[in-house]
Structure formats: structure tokens, C-alpha cells
């Protein structure tokens, strides 16, 4: 149960090894925080992330979660709630970036990535939404991408999965209206992280910490959609209306 200042007692990160997910959890920690759950496929890596979060009174629990194994999602969410109480904030942070060139040519790889990012995202979100609806409160944060506005050719398979998830998450938020549960869609631009190491940064590149700060502010003020950094909203408002021939020629990484 979060308090009047929007400070949550429990924070759950699905994709608990995600740097942005963990940064959001860290930014949400306050004196009322009791539990952070990192749910991830690579539990050893999750424990490393957990070590960086353990501090004082906060319990950090690492549980196994595989985004691709959609049949387990409901059970994982319920077991977290059974152990730690109501889910105050859940961050859906998992997602694979993949190799853009390989994805563009390999149907199997493209399908596998889509399964994790899109199918897994939809399944996990619905599992979380069911729990939040039963509680009558709680927030789901879905990490989308600027691709939610327009998919770039440079990484269109990944971009399409994020666009799909973005549309789904906004619809889910609308569907949950009146239930007490909320969905916040976060659209970061290029984020410097291990996922993007070695890639050429796009304009307005940001950091996990900056995305986390934007996310926490948006949660407190009850927004449904937020860009990180905020200026990308205006940039993409222009970009999405560019004629195709211009859009295709843009050097967007």
C-alpha cells in the first residue's frame, strides 16, 4: 500500500536485470519501502543487481521469471503478492534488443524476439493487471520506446515489438479505468546501458537514472504516458508526420 506521497511499500521489477528497471526501483525507494522484488530469467545476475539495492530495512527478493514462458506468468505474480503483500508498483522492464541485421533476415530470430518482447509483455501485463484490479490499487509501469510513436528502419523488428506493446499498454490502462489500477507507459529515447554498449548514440540520448527520475515524477502526478527525456515528445510529434521519403533518409542510428 503506497502512502499519501506516492511512496510505495513494494516494488516489483519484471526483467529484474534491466538497468532501467532497477534504476526505477532505486529511485522509488523511500523510508516506507519494504520490499523490492527482482523477477528475472538469470537469477545469478539478478542477485548481483540485488546486492546493489540492499540497504537498511529494504528486503530484496530475487525470483525466477521467464518472459517467454507465458504459462507461468500468473503464478509468478500471485506468488510475489502472496509473499510480500499488495503490489504497489510493478515495472515491466524486460525486453531483448537483438541484432538488427540478423532480425531483418531471420524469421526464427524475429519470431523469438517478438515472442519475448510482445507476447511476453502482453501476458505478464495481464497477469499483473488482474492482481492490481483485485487489490483496487497499484501501478504498472511499461517500458516502451520512442518507437511507440514511429518505428525506425534501423531496428524495425525491435521497434515494432515496442510499438505493439506501447499500444497494448495504453489500451490496458484505459481498460483498467475505474478499477483503481493504473498503467504508465514510459517512452525512453536512446539510453546508455549495457544493452546499447557499442552502439552509436542517437540524439537526446539519456541514462537509466534520468529515465527513472522522469518515471517517478510521472507516477506521482498520475500521468499515463511519459517521454524520457521530455523533449522527445515534441521531436517525435514532428517526426511521425514526416513524409516517408524524408523519414527514410534521416540518419537516426
Amino acid at each position, binding site marked *: *500500500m*503506497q*502512502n*499519501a*506521497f*506516492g*511512496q510505495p*511499500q513494494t516494488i516489483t521489477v519484471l526483467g529484474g536485470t534491466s538497468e532501467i528497471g532497477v534504476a526505477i526501483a532505486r529511485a522509488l525507494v*523511500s*523510508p*516506507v519501502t*519494504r520490499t523490492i522484488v527482482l523477477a528475472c530469467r538469470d537469477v545469478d545476475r539478478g542477485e548481483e543487481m540485488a546486492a546493489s539495492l540492499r540497504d537498511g*530495512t529494504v528486503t530484496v527478493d530475487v525470483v525466477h521469471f521467464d518472459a517467454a514462458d507465458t504459462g507461468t506468468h500468473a503464478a509468478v505474480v500471485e506468488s510475489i503478492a502472496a509473499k510480500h*503483500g*499488495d503490489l504497489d508498483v510493478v515495472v515491466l522492464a524486460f525486453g531483448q534488443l537483438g541484432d538488427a541485421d540478423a532480425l531483418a533476415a531471420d524469421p526464427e530470430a524475429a519470431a523469438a524476439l517478438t515472442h519475448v518482447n510482445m507476447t511476453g509483455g502482453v501476458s505478464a501485463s495481464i497477469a499483473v493487471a488482474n492482481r492490481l*484490479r*483485485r*487489490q*483496487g*490499487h497499484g501501478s504498472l509501469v511499461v517500458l516502451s520506446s520512442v518507437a511507440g510513436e514511429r518505428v525506425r528502419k534501423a531496428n524495425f523488428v525491435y521497434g515494432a515489438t515496442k510499438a505493439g506493446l506501447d499500444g497494448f499498454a495504453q489500451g490496458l490502462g484505459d481498460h483498467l479505468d*475505474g*478499477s*483503481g489500477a493504473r498503467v504508465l507507459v514510459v517512452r525512453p529515447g536512446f539510453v546508455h546501458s549495457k544493452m546499447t554498449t557499442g552502439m552509436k548514440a542517437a540524439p537526446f540520448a539519456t541514462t537509466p537514472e534520468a529515465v527513472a527520475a522522469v518515471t517517478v515524477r510521472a507516477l506521482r502526478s498520475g500521468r499515463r504516458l511519459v517521454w524520457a527525456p521530455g523533449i522527445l515528445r515534441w521531436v517525435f510529434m514532428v517526426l511521425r508526420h514526416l513524409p516517408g521519403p524524408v523519414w527514410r533518409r534521416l540518419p537516426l542510428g
Partner: protein
Amino acid sequence: MARRALSGWGRTNPTVAEVVDVLRSEVAATVKEAGDRGALVRGLGRSYGDAAQNGGGLVLRLQGSASDAVLDAAAGLVTVGAGASLDDLMRVIVPRGWFVPVTPGTRFVTIGGAIASDIHGKNHHVDGSFANHVEQLTLQLADGSVATVSPTNDAELFWATFGGMGLTGIVLSATIRLLRIETSRMSVDTQRVADLDALFATMSEGDEAHRYSVAWIDLAAKGRQLGRSALTRGDHARFDELPLRLQADPLAYGPRQLLSVPPLVPRPGVLNHATVAAFNEFWFRKTPRSRVGEIQEIGAYFHPLDMVGDWNRLYGRPGLVQYQCVVPFGQEDVMRRIIEQLSAAGVASFLAVLKRFGAANPAPLSFPQPGWTLALDMPAGGQGLGTLLHRLDTMVLDAGGRNYFAKDAHTTPETVRRGYPRLAEWQAVRRRVDPLQGWQSDLGRRLLLAAD
């Protein structure tokens, strides 16, 4: 039955529950419908935080009025349904020459809510809190039965219900000892007090001579003016104190609302540091340096804010939080540091009040204990307010004090365990009367009241 978002008076942190209006006779059957999120009764929603919410569960709104109240004039007792408000009750009893034993700063609390929070008023230093004046309760228990409890009949459950925040059962009715009054007016002494030291001294010396006493503190004042205040002390006016024109109808009573705040207040609210500081300056200057024996109406003296309906809307979308703590006598330095920190943080509070509590009662979760209590309203959107209040919590607990559940919207289970060392005693009663956790609330979940 309808799914609805409920929040406290502070309008922060709403949750959605199944909400159903019930008569006393329908309570038992309705409670059976509750699922694993349990049931809770809600009165008029004047608790500031999440005390009267039960996200995902069932919330009963017990209907009631004082029209079926039974007044035993010989014994000075009234038996009234728990869904009736103090406002309802006063409209019945004041014209007959009786007053409620305890009233908070609003008339719009139910009898059930007054019991669940064990409310106090400006007379705590003389009369104690609400529990001190209740002879017996009828309580809807989780197992479907109805119990009648009193200080001699299941005293444990009786006392656990005061301050128990609705988690021991649903109060259906209560028998309350009333106060005899000659008139419906108050005789009020008002004085300006220059600073905090003077306030502590003046209240320590003079409070006992009056049934009611409270100081309004200008939190915008700093430095040498820190703690400057308006101290008002009052008593029920005797018939011979009334001016002749009021003696014709000495028990006339009919408080009215002057205006109501519309739902469309600008998003950030209209109460900010500038407007509040201006108001406080005006209020302090308007207070006479010293005035004795002014005749005031009950409503004007006890419930000035009730004249403005829905005043909590003035705080806009972020809502408001109230902070109320008590620190024991002898810890005036701690109270001074708390007021200094609030003043230094520029907290925009136009409703900071200080009063002295008298003896505590046997209820394990009753808030009042002998000492100084400070209560203030603040806009919830203030930067760093959560951190500030946590720091104040630590100061209060280190001094041997505690916070008030009915006002709380921010604190932690650990704070409650330090401030209420008898929590385990209360939990033992709850385990006995509600082993399956049929009664639940957001406050209970947030502060893990039923756990351990």
C-alpha cells in the same frame, strides 16, 4: 453495490472497493458477502488518510440518524446508532440541555468513527477522549454474532475497539454519557501569545481552569516570533452569562453551512505558502490581545471549518496531509524543534494547533497520552514533505511520543510498533474475535496492524 474509488479527507491515494449503503439490520447479511479482501465500515470519511478505505474489498456505509436515539435524561445517557453523526446527535440533544462529551474540530464524524479513532477534543486535559464517556457498545463481530461489550463485560474487546480503527468489528450502537449544559453558547477567553515559550507557560498554568483550551499557531512565523499564537479557552456559558436577548431561547441550536467549495479548484490548489502566510498574518492580527468572556455559538467555537463545505478541495488535485503527534510533558524542546523544522521548511499550514492532553485511558491503541499534541494540515504535493515527516516521526518516537492513526497517511509499521508498545495486546484481542481477518483496511495493510 458498486465499485467506487474512496479516499480519505486528504483526497490522497484513492483505492477502489465495493461500496454498499446498509441499515443496521442489514450489516450481518452484507458482511457475509465479503471476499478475501475483507470488509470495513466507513463513516463520513473524515479520517485524513486511508483508515476508511479497503481496496479490492467491501466497504459498508452504515446509514443512521439520531431520530431513534434514546435519551435517558435521569441518567444523562443517550443510546444512538453508530451511523449517526455528532451533528445529528447535537441537533437532538442540545435543545434538551445536553452536549456530547467530546467533539473534534468537525461535527461531521459518525459515532462509530468517533469510537474507532477514539477521538479527542479541546477538553482532553479535563475529560479525556471519547472512550472515557461510553458505557457500552453493540458490536457486529466477524463470526456473524452481535456482542454487547462494556468496561465490565469483555473489557478487552471493549477497549480494543477504541482506536481499533474498525478492525475489531462494526460498532452498531453505543450508550454515551452526556454533559449537562444550561445554554447552547460558549464563554470564550482569547489572547495573543508572543512566542512558543510563553505559550507553553501560559497553557501549563491556566488550562485547568477551563474545560476547553486550544492554541492556533502561526507556522509562518520564524525566529523570535516562532510559535506566536492565538490561545482560546472556553466553557459552556451559564444562563446568567447570556445577554438578555439570548436568554429567551438559551438552548437554541441550528448551525448552518455558509458556503461550499466547488469541485473545480485549480489543479495545484489555492493554498500555498504565500496565501497561507498572508492568512496567518491576518488571523494573528485579528486576534484580540486579550478578551474575556466573549459569548460564541457552539458551531463557531468548536467547528469553524464546518461552515465551509468540502474545504479540503481548496488543496487542489494533490490533496492534503495532516500530521498529528503527541510528545510527553517535559519534552517541550522536542516540540520546539518540530515546530522549527516545519517553519523552516516553509510548510504552508494555516491550521496548526497545539493542545495539552490529560491522562490516557485503558484502550491499547488510543492515541492521547499526557503531553503536548500538535496537529497541522499541509498540501500533499510539497517537495520533500515525505522525508520531513519521517524525520519528525523519529523525533517524536525518540521523545516517547506517537502519531494518530486517524490522521496518518504516510508512516511505517515500525513507527507504529515503537509508538504503540501495546499493539501486541490489541493483536491478541483481534486474533480472538477475528481469526480469519474478516475486517481489513488499507491503513491496516499499510501499517501491518494485524500482522506479527
